[in-house]
């Protein structure tokens, strides 16, 4: 079968391979690649700035919680030990 010329006088586009549709792009006429092979990317808008003080990883919060728990518990234990020692002396 004779191969069709690459450019012909026929203004309509010709399908190559699996036909997925036809487009008319102004004066440019040619073969259109399938859409799944087209070069696409997600449109990027401005990135939202990170909220001030925000710690999305949660590391600061976890450290603070652990520190507060440790110090708080230690202080409460010391307080309890103090009063037990004094009151035990009083009740001897």
């Amino acid at each position: 079968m004779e191969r069709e010329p690459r450019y012909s006088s026929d203004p309509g586009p010709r399908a190559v391979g699996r036909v997925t549709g036809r487009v008319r792009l102004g004066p440019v006429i040619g073969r259109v690649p399938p859409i799944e092979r087209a070069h696409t990317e997600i449109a990027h808008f401005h990135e939202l700035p990170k909220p001030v003080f925000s710690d999305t990883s949660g590391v600061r919060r976890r450290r603070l919680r652990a520190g507060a728990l440790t110090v708080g518990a230690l202080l409460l234990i010391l307080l309890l030990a103090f009063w037990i020692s004094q009151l035990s002396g009083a009740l001897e």
Partner: protein
Amino acid sequence: MTLYHGTHQTTSRPARRSGPHLIALVLVALLGLLANMLLVEAYLRNDFAPDSEPGQEQPADAVPAAVASGGPVIDVSGTSPHTYRMPARTIALTFDDGPDSRWTPRILDVLHRHQARGTFFVLGSLVVRHPELARRIAAEGHEIGVHTFTHPRVAALPTWLRGLEHSATRGAIAYTTGRSSSLYRPPYSSIADALDNSDLPTLRETAHQGYLTVLNDLDGEDWQRPGVEAIVRNATPAGTSGAIVLLHDAGGDRSQTVAALDRLIPRLQARGYRFTTVSAALAGSIPAANPQAGFAERSRGWALVWMVRTADLTLELLWLLLFAAGVLFLGRTLLVVVTAQRHARRRRSPGWSWGPPVSDPVTIVVPAFNEAKTIEPAVRSLAQSVHPGVEVIVVDDASTDGTGAVVTGLRLDNVRVIRTPSGGKAAALNTGVAFARHDLIVMVDADTVVEADAIHRLVQPFADPRVGAVSGNVKVGNRHSLLGTWQHIEYVVGFNLDRRLYDMLGCIPTIPGALGAFRRRAVEDAGGLQVDTLAEDTDLTIAVHRAGWRVVFEETARAWTEAPTGLRQLWRQRYRWSFGTMQALWKHRGAVIERGPSGRFGRRGLLLVTLFSVLLPLLAPLLDIMAVYGLVFLDRWAATIGWLSMMVIQAVTSAIAFRLDHESLRPLWTLPLQQVFYRQLMYLVLLHSALTAVAGRRLRWQKLRRTGEVTRPAPVG
């Protein structure tokens, strides 16, 4: 300029909400510690009444005859009581109520000079404060006995507290000197014959705890300051009999005691008397008074001494912070009142003008999210403004209650509705600015109703080409409830004192979202409204300052806004405000060290706002805490007068603000209640915000419940 972020959301793993529990734990721990320290201090500083205080007459029929008629050293630990007297020509000088930093060293010097020994019955609370004196007493061969911790009337105390008074003092002696003590003298005691029934429980308990009770034979009565010779006479035994002599080394001016000792000791030594300690005089009959202390006693004393030292430090720190808060409070009040009145006088002067009248067209942007209840009166009041060429853009931020439809249904020619996907208030405002046709842009909240001439008045400062933003005067429209009245007071004071001060200093930190005007160029120079803080109005205002624009206050442009009607709503709103303000201050902290207009604002505005809006409110609870503490434990009159003075200052300040704003003074009757309840709520909100900031939690916009109570501007005055 970032105009619109659409529905873009930062994706983050939903964090486990541990905030409230953490805050509760921290608060409980802190309050527990603070309460403990304050109680320890209060107990230590309990009113000290010297031994001279008269007691009430009590029956003495239960006192064993052997005790009442026996010697001054009493032991009731056995089945039958034993008492001991001093041998002949033997004096045991005893000193009560010390150690005292002034008189105890002088008495020790006199004793040392005459090679005499004495017995010091010390107070535990003073041993803790003067450990070096306790050590010196022990090192110079004197004896130390227990005279309780705080010198209470022990007979009136419950058993456990009596025990605590004794064991704590013994512990303090053990930790500071390394010695235990087996001698005890009850406060307000006298001779054995003066014992009554109320003294018996203490006598038995102390004997059970291993103490010998030491009373006296002769009372020098130096507490009366009868003169040196009188003290010498009182302390001199008859003939050659021995005696335990009661004197004092603390509790007042003891110069006569020191001088009397200097005469008494040589005189009696010349008569063949020896001056020794109680247990040395009775050696062989009673055990040594100060054996080596055991581990338990020393440990108890260590804990006690450090607790008292920590409590002392805590109280000193609290007084220091209270002083700082007081200075800040008074300084701010003075500055605000003087400056606000100057501001008002300047604005009311006949020659005052912003420049030629401004009649340029204005675009009003109203961001709205589920504001169906309030949007109608708000938009009507804006659309009917008397300023020529007013265009109103309502940006409906994906409302689900038909807010947009309500506005459309008004069929007002100069009102447009733009519906956007959900993006938040800042994004909605940016959209409104982008769609605005005019260069003068007014931003108004959807729950705010303006006076007919408010917009016209608001834009007049733009006659000055250096002005980039103008703050209006926002008032509470729903002030019928107590909560509304308190917020009304707060708004009037905030707008008519603080804002005037900041205006005079050229550093207004916030153009309120409820009513503010901007030049488009100023907004663009500031980078538009940012979404990284929750106080987008403060953030934008600071950015406008830093871009070199003037920000001013126009007090005659009035708007009525709807204040939260419930505590939960109020908490949410203020939580967001204070957290957002902290975010904005932190975000723009670099301005403090910059040059040019940014640096000028940073060094003046940011520091003032941090001092007056963050630091002072964080310290202010001390004014109340210490007032209550003083009222209960310290000088009640001083505490009451201090707190009432603060209240009067607040009332006068508020009255000045109300006068400047032509408001009725009637709501000010709620001021005392506001100080007691509302202010405490604001403290907690601020504390909550500060903890949220430190923890790095991300706070989101929280929609307030609307009632639509603000329907029309209230009449002025």
